[in-house]
């Protein structure tokens, strides 16, 4: 995204709210507030330092209003752009713009969802689309499934290759104490699981959990004065190519090509210089598409690229080290969790799943049905 300064803002705090299956009658705003307090604790700041609030949830039409009321921050600068799961990557760019413009000095970006508790339909009601709803696609899965059908047709991508993505995510999840899934998964286990929308089984699809969290962003000056090692925002990009799958320009090429191009250009880095990848894995095909579209392998090669555990803990590319939306958590919109994991990796806090000497991370958010693509490149101290 042009107009923002490389390293013009930093992430100085990150935390999850309660995850998985949260206490009865918790609200999405409760989870946002919990995430914000924990992320501020992490940063060594308090709620009274906050003058910028960014948030989104599918469980409230006016979440920023609700959150400001809840936190007692009537004068905070606020933005609740919502374009699906990538909203939070876009919030990073918007928060940086606000920080650079002096509209705020300490910004929080928050999410909360009780999707598992209240049910998928209650958490995220589908809007009626007269050109799609009559055909009863099981959305979002059927949209991604049709993209997968094209990838298989055009490039020979196989079910086993897609299953590799789920198996790698599970292997990472077993190294993450916060992950929802606790048991190993095999390729056979993916292929023989309950069918959802061909070619996907339930193991090709993200989890349905509760959860939330927050990150804290501030100016470079303030960031250097705080207790955590700052994680610098090096570059951002976004591309929103469509809203419904029948209007996607090309089912095997996503807006990540453009959002990635913008973010790499702003950050001044190339894919070869990225240490950690956080790619929005709502479905197994996503990881394959984003590895291609963000330049880690040529178009059409993503399936072959992930073979042999290449993106798992024993592989040579660290992708979705928290276990991803497939095995760690996926409360409706997942984009904030990508940012939290990238921050922790760049700070070296990830224990058994830590990537050695991680200095650069690419965070790629996806919203809707491959619709809203947003990329953020983050860096450690050595990058600024």
């Amino acid at each position, binding site marked *: 995204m042009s107009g923002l300064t490389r390293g013009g803002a930093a992430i100085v705090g990150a935390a999850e709210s309660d995850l998985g299956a949260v206490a009865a009658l918790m609200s999405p705003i409760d989870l946002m507030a919990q995430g914000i307090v924990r992320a501020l604790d992490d940063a060594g700041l308090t709620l009274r330092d906050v003058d910028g609030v960014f948030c989104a949830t599918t469980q409230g039409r006016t979440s920023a209003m609700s959150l400001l009321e809840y936190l007692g921050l009537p004068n905070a600068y606020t933005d609740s752009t919502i374009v699906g799961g990538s909203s939070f990557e876009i919030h990073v760019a918007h928060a940086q713009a606000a920080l650079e413009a002096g509209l705020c000095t300490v910004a929080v970006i928050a999410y909360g969802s009780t999707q598992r508790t209240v049910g998928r339909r209650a958490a995220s009601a589908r809007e009626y689309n*007269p*050109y*799609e709803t*009559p*055909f*009863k*696609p*099981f959305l979002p899965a*059927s949209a991604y*499934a*049709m*993209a997968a*059908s*094209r990838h298989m*047709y055009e490039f020979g991508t196989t079910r086993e290759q897609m299953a590799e993505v789920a198996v790698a995510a599970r292997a990472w999840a077993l190294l993450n104490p916060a992950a929802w899934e606790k048991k190993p998964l095999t390729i056979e286990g993916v292929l023989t699981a*309950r*069918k*959802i*929308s*061909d*070619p996907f089984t339930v193991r090709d699809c993200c989890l349905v959990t509760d959860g939330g969290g927050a990150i804290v962003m501030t100016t470079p000056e303030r960031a250097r004065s705080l207790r955590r090692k700052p994680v610098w925002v090096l570059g951002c990009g976004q591309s929103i190519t469509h809203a*419904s*799958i*029948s*209007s996607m320009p090309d*089912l095997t090429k996503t807006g990540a090509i453009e959002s990635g191009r913008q973010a790499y250009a702003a950050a001044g880095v190339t894919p070869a210089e990225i240490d950690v990848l956080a790619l929005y894995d709502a479905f197994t095909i996503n990881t394959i598409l984003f590895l291609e579209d963000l330049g880690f392998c040529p178009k059409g090669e993503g399936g072959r690229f992930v073979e042999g555990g290449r993106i798992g803990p024993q592989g040579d590319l660290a992708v979705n080290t928290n276990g991803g939306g497939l095995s760690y958590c996926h409360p409706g919109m997942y984009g904030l969790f990508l940012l939290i994991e990238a921050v922790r990796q760049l700070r070296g806090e990830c224990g058994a799943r830590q990537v050695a000497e991680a200095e650069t991370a690419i965070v790629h958010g996806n919203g809707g049905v491959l619709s809203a693509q947003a990329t953020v490149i983050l860096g450690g101290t050595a990058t600024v």
Partner: protein
Amino acid sequence: MPAATESPLATYIAHLERGELAYQFSPSANRAVFYPRLVCPETGATDLDWRVSKGLGTVHATTVVHPAQGAPFNVALIDMDEGFRLMSRVEDVDPTSVAIGQRVRFRVHPAEGEEPPYPVFTLAEGA
């Protein structure tokens, strides 16, 4: 731009009620536009023409939905010969046999209660 006397969706449904699959053509972009709308998404022009498709197309992408209850069914994206794409389903065949590249022909699924008619497809081998 002048007030709309009929919405794009209403015009589309009126064509379906006559057994026609309608789409729009943008002279300024020289291409088909679908779904119907007031503004061309390529040029911003507002002079979109209505046209009626010959009804032949090709399966572009396909899936079989496996509902928790009930029989599996097909959902597909169909590329019409006139150069527009729409979501639909291929009927009268085993849903698992629907494949990318198959030629298909439009027919109307009639209105049912509050639900307006909508376009569905059948195999059109050799068409």
